[in-house]
């Protein structure tokens, strides 16, 4: 026995969440689907109505360029909302089938001598603490299965650390390294694939701890030989659950029993509220429960790396096709010039063999967003029509980014990686994808263009405060009468779709990260290389004011601007000005409130850093 388990329970900041279990996925409800669809159609119709009015009757002739810029931003935002509604149109879970007994039950062509299924668990690590990886290894060893199974666990250590090798030996699992770290995580996984032989491969990050039911619950999907991979939700078990509102009112707000009573009454009306929950908006529940789950029905759920199970044959075959295509295309420019057919063949054979020696075979694309890139490649294979399955139950647990810099590294990677795929290898142009698959991938890429409309919209009050220009002719009854029904219907549609899923924090951070996403967009358009920074898995919360400088600047400017415009208006007042002023103050205040949790997260110095944490 390894004497580390009891120690481990004490030494990590997340030890106190050790016994937490993931929530069950929300019940699929056709009635809710229908209510959402009705509201989404209503919102879209009201949106079109508003935009027709907006372009036809509301442009401000006194500030035409500004007015048009804001109207363009509104139109782009409307397109984004429509795409989003379409991409979450309905939720359908895959049919669960019993776990297969033998390899032939998941193979397209049976083996002459059947055998138990072979599963390799690949745990990729680069610089994470050895003892953290040990937790993942120990949990992987506890994976259960109702039938005989050949389970092999491998630590893929790109850090080539003797201590990691020793840990793997102690735990009795495989340890694989390579000489360089080309391709980073994707290259590390490739090396793992090359040295193992499982029918199925479980992809884990260093901190991915499988729950015992992972294989028993998901392997049934592979009975369909066209299923290439199964993705399970990534569940961050270390996210701060916050304090229930009644408790918070009673203790933190020092209101005692009356406070608790008020809290209970409020919760009876609006549902459970947890104060201070998930301060870093790390909880990806909304993404998995709404976005991924909404893609099952049209075979467009994509792989997110950790917590997924892959059919080796699918990944390898797709990699070979991609390899063969790249190699043959690379020699075409040279052979095309040769007229003599015999000579051309000879030249081609020689060149192709040469090109093949230098090209890389990449089962997982060497890319920052290797998971989504690989998903597109598999979905787009016209001969195979590979299927992906999003399995809605969380069957692994992992750690969330622990401070704003770590969060920023992760989100920048997501944004730049996705935009880079859209820019270089636009899935809309891939003939192998179905229209719905194109729409789903297109919606994901489009969502990362959000700063193009959020920044003009968020910052337009500043233009009003300092220059006095308004994006509409007047903030009058016609404006509000056209806009508010649309906004209400949109919010309602979204609320129904996201019923039971916490989204508020994610929305705040989405707005607050517009600056980050704009930088990612600039990065990709400038053609700068994408770095493979490992998302920091553990560590102290660090202060980072520079990340929130734009947000602080916005709030300061808003305060100064409100004072300035207020003073000007006090001099020569009038009702129309009053509504314009009030509208812009409201909008600026709303934006500031959304920025606030983001700023607080940046300021949080060693907030709740109990137990030392891992470094």
């Amino acid at each position: 026995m390894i004497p580390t388990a009891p120690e481990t329970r004490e030494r990590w900041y997340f030890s106190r969440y050790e016994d937490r279990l993931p929530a069950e996925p929300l019940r699929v409800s056709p009635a809710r689907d229908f209510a959402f669809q009705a509201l989404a159609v209503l919102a879209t119709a009201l949106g079109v109505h508003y935009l027709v009015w907006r372009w036809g009757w509301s442009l401000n002739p006194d500030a035409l360029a500004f007015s048009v810029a804001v109207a363009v931003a509104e139109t782009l935002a409307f397109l984004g909302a429509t795409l989003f509604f379409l991409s979450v149109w309905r939720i359908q879970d895959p049919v669960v089938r019993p776990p297969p007994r033998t390899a032939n039950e998941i193979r397209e062509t049976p083996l002459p001598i059947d055998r138990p299924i072979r599963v390799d668990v690949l745990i990729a690590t680069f610089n994470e603490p050895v003892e953290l990886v040990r937790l993942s290894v120990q949990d992987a060893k506890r994976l259960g299965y109702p039938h005989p199974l050949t389970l092999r666990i491998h630590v893929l250590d790109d850090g080539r650390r003797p201590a990691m090798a020793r840990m793997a030996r102690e735990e009795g699992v495989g340890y694989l390294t390579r000489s360089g770290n080309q391709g980073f995580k994707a290259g590390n996984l490739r090396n793992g694939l090359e040295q193992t032989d499982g029918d199925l491969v479980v992809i884990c990050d260093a901190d991915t701890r499988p729950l015992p039911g992972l294989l028993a619950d998901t392997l049934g999907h592979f009975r369909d030989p066209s299923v290439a991979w199964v993705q399970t939700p990534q569940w961050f078990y270390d996210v701060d659950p916050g304090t229930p509102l009644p408790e918070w009112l009673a203790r933190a707000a020092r209101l005692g029993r009356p406070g608790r009573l008020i809290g209970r009454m409020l919760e009876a009306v609006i549902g459970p509220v947890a104060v201070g929950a998930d301060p870093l908006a790390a909880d990806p529940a909304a993404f998995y429960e709404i976005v991924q789950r909404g893609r099952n029905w049209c075979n467009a759920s994509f792989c997110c790396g950790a917590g997924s199970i892959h059919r080796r044959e699918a990944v390898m075959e797709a990699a070979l096709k991609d390899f063969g295509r790249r190699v043959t295309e690379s020699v075409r420019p040279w052979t095309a010039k040769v007229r003599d057919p015999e000579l051309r063949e000879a030249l081609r054979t020689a060149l192709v063999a040469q090109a093949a020696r230098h090209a890389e075979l990449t089962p997982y694309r060497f890319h920052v967003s290797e998971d989504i890139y690989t998903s597109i490649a598999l979905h787009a294979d016209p001969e195979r029509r590979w299927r992906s399955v999003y399995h809605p139950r969380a069957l692994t647990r992992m750690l969330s980014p622990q401070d704003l810099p770590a969060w920023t590294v992760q989100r920048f990677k997501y944004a730049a990686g996705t935009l880079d795929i859209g820019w270089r290898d636009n899935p809309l142009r891939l003939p192998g994808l179905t229209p719905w698959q194109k729409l789903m991938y297109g919606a994901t890429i489009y969502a990362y263009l959000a700063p193009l409309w959020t920044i003009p919209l968020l910052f337009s009050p500043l233009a009003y405060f300092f220059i006095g220009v308004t994006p509409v002719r007047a903030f009058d009854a016609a404006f509000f009468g056209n806009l508010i029904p649309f906004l209400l219907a949109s919010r309602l549609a979204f609320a129904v779709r996201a019923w039971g899923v916490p989204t508020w924090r994610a929305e705040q951070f989405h707005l607050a990260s517009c600056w980050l996403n704009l930088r990612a967009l600039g990065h990709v358009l400038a053609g700068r290389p994408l770095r493979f920074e490992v998302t920091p898995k553990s560590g102290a919360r660090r202060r980072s004011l520079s990340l929130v400088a734009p947000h602080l600047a916005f709030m300061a400017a808003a305060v100064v601007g409100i004072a300035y415009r207020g003073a000007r208006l006090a001099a020569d007042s009038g009702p129309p000005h009053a509504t314009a002023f009030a509208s812009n103050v409201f909008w600026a205040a709303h934006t500031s409130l959304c920025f606030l949790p983001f700023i607080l997260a940046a300021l949080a110095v060693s907030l709740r850093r109990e137990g030392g944490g891992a470094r």
Partner: protein
Amino acid sequence: MLEARFEERRGALLVTPLAALDAEAAPELRRVVGERASGRSLVVVSLAQVREVDSSGLAGLLAVLKRMAPGGELRLAAVPPRTRDILMATHLDEVFPQFEDAAAALRR
């Protein structure tokens, strides 16, 4: 596990695998055949005894090719029809020249 016969034929290496070239055989294919093929200019892999070559096996053959001398050729002999299909589908038929049998593949 890779079961294979290795023969030297006129400066070329002739490899005759005796079972499937699949995921199970691939790690050894890379290591053992890769070792023997290293720096050579002609390697012939005869598939006469092979029932199946899967994508991991093909990836293993690519790894072997990469270790050969510049300008070297890895030729396949007696390719079974199903393997021919996957070679076509992956465009690797252009990377690995194919021959009727080992004797034809060994002719320079």
